[in-house]
């Protein structure tokens, strides 16, 4: 009998912990999950709420890379659709960031649809293509 009571208590404590964790996870997901937009998707569903952190991805449009004051980098992201996303990033671009290459950026849209990136996804390897962009770039052999 006592062994059973003990097991019951253990399970009860575990259940409480799991419930607490589930609550935290729900809260954290609601707070921090980032939606992902390609230019095409943006054209379809419209701008997300300005100021909300989202991710965007596509190709850096050749010829669009420009430098501003105070280490600002500006470029456009395209994906073969009509839509173009204009991105501004202040900081050092990842080593493999180039025109014509894929990029995934985390940041926020403003009301005018301009995207301010806080993070650019760097890759370690020139053959690696982020999953979200695989339909845009065919891997070179």
């Amino acid at each position, binding site marked *: 009998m*006592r*062994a059973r009571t*003990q097991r019951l*208590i*253990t399970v009860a*404590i*575990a259940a409480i*912990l*799991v419930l*607490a*964790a589930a609550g*935290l*996870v729900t*809260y*954290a*997901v609601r*707070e*921090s*999950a*980032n*939606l*992902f937009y390609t230019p095409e*998707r943006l054209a379809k569903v419209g701008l997300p709420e300005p100021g909300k952190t989202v*991710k965007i991805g596509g190709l850096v449009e050749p010829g669009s890379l420009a*430098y*501003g*004051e*105070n*280490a600002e*980098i500006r470029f456009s992201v395209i994906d073969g659709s009509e839509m173009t996303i204009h991105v501004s990033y*202040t*900081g*050092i*671009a990842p*080593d*493999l960031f180039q025109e014509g290459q894929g990029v*995934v950026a*985390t940041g926020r849209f403003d009301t005018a649809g301009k995207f301010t990136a806080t993070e650019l*996804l*760097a*890759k*370690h*390897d*020139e*053959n*690696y293509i*982020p*999953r*979200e962009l695989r339909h845009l770039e065919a*891997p070179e052999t």
Partner: protein
Amino acid sequence: MIEFGHFAAILAFCLSGLQGVQGLRGQRGPAAFLALTALGAMGVSFLTLVMAFARSDFSVALVANHSHTLKPFLYKIAGTWGNHEGSMALWCLVTLGFGAAGAVFLRTGRPKFEARSLGIQGLVAAGSLAYLLFASSPFMRVAEPELQGDSLNPLLQDPALAFHPPLLYLGYVGYSFVFAMAAAALIEARVDRIWAKAVRGWAMAAFVPLSGGIMLGALWAYYELGWGGWWFWDPVENASLMPWLLGAALLHSLIVTEKRGGFAVWSVLLAVLAFCFSILGAFLVRSGILTSVHAFADDPTRGLVLLIGLLAYGGAALGLFAFRAYKIKGGPIWAAASREGALMGNNLILAVATATVLLGTLFPLIAEAFGRQMSVGEPYFRLTFVPIMAPALIALPVVQAWSWGRMDLSGIWKWAAAFAGICAVFGLLGVGLMDIPLFAALGVALGVWLVGGSMWELKRRAVTWPRLLKLPLRVWGMTLAHIGLGVFVVGAVVETSQRYETTLDLAMGGRAEVAGWTLSLEDMRVVEGPNWFSDRATISASKGGAMIELRPEKRYYPAARMPTSETAIHKSPSGDLYLALGDRREVNGQVRWTFRAYFNPLIDLVFGGVILMALGGLFSVLPRGVFKARARQADMASLPAGELAE
């Protein structure tokens, strides 16, 4: 030459398969012999691969794709495992190494159990070798060899990363033998103290190198990627954290199984899961199913094979578990306030924390199943992992003094008062005087609480100071590991909350202020190395009377057509001044360079804490008597003459 290696690997595959058969038949002698010969065969095979890399034999496809004659010798060797196929060969070698070590060192007085453990290890090794030979063979030739190779990814040409994969694999694969011992115990439905005592050493043999491997990876990310941080909650990083968390849970659960015979079913389950999560890690890293900053060229079909392997081995073990677990006996009854209760709390929390990390890591896949493209980042993990782990850290110094079975809680208010006192002191000092956020001040208080509490407990167990040296190494190991945890918490909290970062945009002679340092760009020049050339900046930094020079670089590796950042770091007791060189740009006809500058306070405590944890683990499994002779001498010397006579 490489064909010989290919042949040796096939031989190792056959020998491992035989080892599986003989082991499961309960033949310890033959299984042990086969384990040793299989390791020999794979050792020869791996050596031919290393030789091919050392001699830059570009007729081997793998070498042609990943090496270059101009590469420094260390990176030619390390290049062997700096790619998918070669690293799988290393994985197989380590699996067989653990099998051979088991053949020699696993002595429990139960030959049938040992034989079955070796047998299952043989099957795991055969599975890995099959994957190596049929899905990712490193032994292929190219039809028309070129004179020059494609070189190793320059980011990997780094000392920390040369040793990061072997260490990490010792950890991942180390759990294969723990898994084998768990499955063998399930076959005979006997999980008792002798089993736990035997498993503990092997679980530590995986945990210590895994800690070291994770730390080297974090260190590398810190100084090589140029982002100033050391942990990004990236899927690839999480893949190594999850087996580590489960491994830590296992080590604590095994204590109860070894000392009291309790938690037996749970220990077996953890032993199985730790290895499943290691394979899951390999799957996440190699399949490219998740977007990762650390991902390398990947291949979904390889991932699929790994997933099938995971399901086959994990499923078989869990099936065995379902049919046998009910036969395993539990230990004596215990009260909630007891060492068993405390260790159960530890295990529940670690298991739940692992589950939240798993959820966050797989979140993009879960979201996609519901038709959405979403991901979670660092905030998710901060909001879940940290609050879940915090109660365990707060309780640790209190409950490690609890005794088996039942504990009198009448003195607990003193502990509560001590904790409240430390929090109040650090809270007031931090927020009032140093102007840091409350949660950061409390985080530091928690770390200090862990370090102080662990030392207090060590002294309590020793009773008198001279007896400290008489304490078993296990107690020292535990204390060291818990102090390491506290040191890590202090470092992690201070570094992440107080990191200062800024982007500089400097022309020649330009000045900037970073965290009390005055920086000035003195020089820019092109330098040449063995297989790279580089833009090197010289920046003088002065603070008070001190003057130092920092030289961050942007290297370009023509062979790989790829640039890397070489950061410049100035270490001081209060933290690292950290500079990374960015782009050269012309604005209004003036040439300017961007720099990323950081001040990372107490960053060394992050890495130091992990080293202490690994050292503590190592200490706690050293055989009795390693330091005994010396400890006794020291003890004699420190005792007063009167006590010696007793």
